[in-house]
C-alpha cells in the first residue's frame, strides 16, 4: 500500500481524560487510504527527538479528510503534541501497517480493549456488521465507552480500581461474562494481550491482536520493531516487523517471550 508524507493541520486537540488527548488532524490524502487498525507516524520537530511517534488511527473521516488519534502523554513527544495549539502543523507519514483483517464477516465479534489500546477499536467497530461484544478495561475509567454503545455494541466495563464497571482486568471480565465469538479483536498493553490470547485459545476463538514495539522507520526498512511469530505450518519462529507485517497478528502465531 502506498504511504505518503503529509503536513497535518491540527483541527482539535482536547484533553478527554487525565493526560489523554484526542486530536483531529486534517490529512486529506492519508484519510482516503487508511483502514482501521493502521497507524500513522507523527513527527515532533523537536531537535532532541529525532524519531517519529507511532500512533494508532482512532477514527477516519474520509469525507472531511480527517484522522482522529487519541494519545496519552507519557514522554517528551506526546507532551509536545499536547501543547500544540489548534492551527499548528505536524508532519505525518501514513497510513502504516496492515489493519485488522475484515475480509470475512463474523456473526459474533468480541472486541477487547485496554487503556490507551482502546482507540483503534472504535474505527474497527464501525466496520463490523455482526453482533459486537466490547470489553473495555482501564486503570480507572476506560475511554470511548459511549462511542462503542452508539455503534451498536454491547459494552462491558472494568477498571483496576473499581471506579467504573467491574473491579478487575478484562480477562477476569471475559471469564465473568463468558461471551461467545467467532473472532476476537484486541488492542492494549502487551501483558493484557498475552492473557487475552490465552483466553481466546482456551475458548477456541481465533484472535487478531494489535501489537506495539519500539520503532524507528515505521515502514519496514530498519527491522527495528520485530516480534517473534511462528506462522501456521512453519517449523520455526521468525522475527516479523510490527510496522509492516503487523501491527495486527493472529494471536496463536505470537511467541510470548516474557
Amino acid at each position, binding site marked *: 500500500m502506498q504511504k505518503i508524507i503529509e503536513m497535518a493541520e491540527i483541527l482539535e486537540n482536547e484533553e478527554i481524560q487525565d493526560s489523554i488527548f484526542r486530536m483531529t488532524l486534517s490529512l486529506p490524502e492519508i484519510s482516503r487510504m487508511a483502514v482501521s487498525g493502521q497507524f500513522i507516524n507523527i513527527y515532533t520537530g523537536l531537535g532532541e527527538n529525532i524519531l517519529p511517534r507511532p500512533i494508532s488511527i482512532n477514527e477516519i473521516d474520509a469525507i472531511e479528510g480527517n484522522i482522529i488519534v487519541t494519545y496519552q502523554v507519557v514522554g517528551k513527544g506526546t507532551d509536545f503534541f499536547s501543547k500544540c495549539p489548534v492551527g499548528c502543523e505536524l508532519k505525518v507519514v501514513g497510513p502504516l501497517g496492515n489493519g485488522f483483517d475484515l475480509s470475512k464477516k463474523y456473526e459474533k465479534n468480541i472486541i477487547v480493549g485496554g487503556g490507551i489500546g482502546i482507540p483503534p477499536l472504535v474505527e474497527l467497530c464501525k466496520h463490523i456488521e455482526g453482533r459486537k461484544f466490547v470489553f473495555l478495561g482501564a486503570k480507572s475509567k476506560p475511554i470511548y465507552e459511549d462511542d462503542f454503545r452508539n455503534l451498536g455494541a454491547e459494552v462491558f466495563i472494568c477498571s483496576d480500581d473499581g471506579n467504573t464497571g467491574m473491579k478487575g482486568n478484562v480477562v477476569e471480565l471475559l471469564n465473568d461474562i463468558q461471551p461467545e465469538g467467532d473472532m476476537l479483536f484486541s488492542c492494549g498493553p502487551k501483558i493484557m494481550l498475552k492473557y487475552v490470547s490465552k483466553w481466546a485459545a482456551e475458548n477456541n476463538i481465533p484472535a487478531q491482536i494489535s501489537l506495539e514495539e519500539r520503532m*524507528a522507520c515505521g515502514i519496514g*526498512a530498519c*527491522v527495528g520493531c520485530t516480534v517473534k511469530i511462528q506462522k501456521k505450518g512453519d517449523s520455526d519462529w521468525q522475527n516479523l516487523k510490527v510496522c509492516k507485517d503487523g501491527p495486527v497478528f493472529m494471536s496463536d502465531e505470537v511467541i510470548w517471550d516474557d
Partner: protein
Amino acid sequence: MTDIDTTVNICGIEMKNPVTTASGTFGSGREFSDFVDINRIGAVTVKGVSSVPWKGNDSPRIAEVYGGMLNSVGLQNPGAKWFIENDIPFLKKYDTKIIVNICGHTIGEYCDIAEIMSDADVDMLELNISCPNVREGGIAFGTVAPMVEKVVKSVKKYCKKPLIVKLSPNVTDITEIAKAAVSGGADALSLINTLMGMKIDIKKRKPVLANKIGGFSGPAIKPVAVRMVYQVCKCVDVPVIGMGGIINSDDAIEFIMAGATMISVGTANFMNPKATTEIADGIEKFMYENNIKNLSEIRGIID
C-alpha cells in the same frame, strides 16, 4: 546548472552523484520508493546480507536518545538467496548503482558471502567488520588492526567486485585501522559505523534495549564521524565514503570537505523519508551557488 558535474567515481564505478544510503537504514530501497525517486541517488547501499538468514536480536531493538538513536537489530536478514531473488531485481529497475553490505560471524562466512555476491548483479561490496551487535567475533574483527588486515586479505581472495571496508568508530586510533584495511587490500573505506551506546529506562530499572548495548547513530554522532573521516582521508589514498549523522546537504558538504568522495544518509531517513534526494538536490544547489564545477574542487580542502 548544465555545467555542474556531480558525478563521482569510486574504483572505476561512476555514480551520478555522491549520495548513497547507509546500510541498514534504507532496507533495499523498496520501502522508501514511495517517498523518493531512487533514480536520483548515486548508489543504494542495502542492509547487511549474510550467506544464510539471520534472526537478529530480541526486541526492543530501538531506543531514542538525545539527537540520535540506538539500535540492536543484530543484522537480521533473510540471507543471500532471498536477497538475490528479490532485492536485486527490484533495484535493477532503477538507474542507480548497488552496493551490498556483507556480514558474517567468522572469516569463512565473510568469504562465503563475498564469493556469492561477487557473482550477483551488483556494483560493489561493503564489508561490515564493525557491527557492534554481532557477538561472535564481530567486535574483534573491526577493532584490532592485524585482525582487520587479515579479514580483508581473506575476503579479497573471494571478492571479484571492488571492496569497500566499513570501519568501526569504537577504536583508539582510527587511522591505524584504516591503514590495516588498506594493507589488506581494501579498494575503498566507509566510516563510521555506529558508536556503542546504552540507555537505561529508570522507571523499569533496566536497559531499554533487550541487548542492553546498541549502536548509536544520528546527528548526535556527527562530530566524531567528521573527525574520523578527516583523519582517515589524511592517511590513506583510497576513496572514502563518509557517514554518521548526515541530515542535510550542509552536513554532506562538511564530509566532502573533510575528504569524503561519497556520503551516506542513514538515520536521517527515519527523520525525513525524503532525506536522500533532498540532500542530492542540496549538494547541487551548493555547487551552483558556490560556482563549483566538480566536487573534487572542495574534496579534502581542509588541511
